[in-house]
């Protein structure tokens, strides 16, 4: 039985989403948690491209991993010390 490359790639990327999502929840360092959440979005956007939804992928890449991460970083800086 041969598995198509696309399926393998999707599974790999999806496990990437899962791992970075778990890291985002479990990491104690807020900065690393935010970066892993952004990473999850980045993996998700690549999955969207692989699954032929480039429109969604664009939004996910720029808003999910770019702007959201940035806003979280600003928020962390603002509330620093209170965890």
């Amino acid at each position, binding site marked *: 039985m041969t598995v198509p490359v696309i399926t393998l790639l999707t599974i790999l990327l999806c496990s990437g989403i899962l791992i970075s999502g778990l890291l985002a929840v479990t990491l104690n360092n807020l900065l690393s948690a935010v970066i892993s959440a952004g990473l999850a979005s980045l993996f998700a956007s690549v999955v969207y491209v692989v699954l032929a939804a480039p429109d969604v992928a664009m939004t996910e890449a720029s*808003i999910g991993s770019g702007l959201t991460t940035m806003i979280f970083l600003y*928020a962390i800086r603002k509330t620093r010390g209170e965890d």
Partner: protein
Amino acid sequence: MIKRLFILMMLAVMAVIFLNLAGNYRENTELSRLGHYYAENGPQELGAPNLVTAVVVTYRGLDTLGEVTVLFISAAGVGLLLRRTRRKQDDEDLEQGDRAEETAGVHKPASEIVETATELLLPMVILFGIYVFLNGHLSPGGGFQGGAIIASGTMFLLLALPESHISRLMIAVIESLSGFSYVVVGVLGVLLAGGFLDNRIIDPGTYGALFSAGAIPLIYVFVGLKVGFELSAVLDRFRKEDTGPL
């Protein structure tokens, strides 16, 4: 104890729901009736090669207007909340001037690499955003995506030059004007064509040309500008708040 029990119960319920979904999943081999209609008649009716755009802007145009409104409300909410806290902080500033001086070095200047890269990339990022929403009816992407890319450009700018000033007035004027024009184009659709946000108020032109597909490019320019400037305003507000003592 009760809290933990509740969490476990919630997890069990979620597991049952998702197992059901996963177990009954079957890949669709053909389009639903609505999807079939869109795929069949979309290109001829609206003249847009990118069918996603045709559906998002015209057939489901009202939903898009709703999304734009949601974004507008959240941006307005961010503005309202952060403005209120800033005023309070201004008062604290007066009392705690010494502390403010102590933490004045919050805005470290960006590194040489980031600054130079931003100077090189910023025009291209903004140009790419404009390209994405102008070509929304031809290639993947559209108003939201283009606007988000423009906002990423603003993000670059704020990263590289933390002290740079963005005119709130300009943002407000462009945002409100484009939002208003978007609704005006929609209402024109009712008056001149088949219904709200109908794109056939302008001649569709040649299929696949840059200026074709009726009002879709026009609508996407407005949506793109609105989304881009709104997200930039949100970023700017979060940044400006930072100048207070931490």
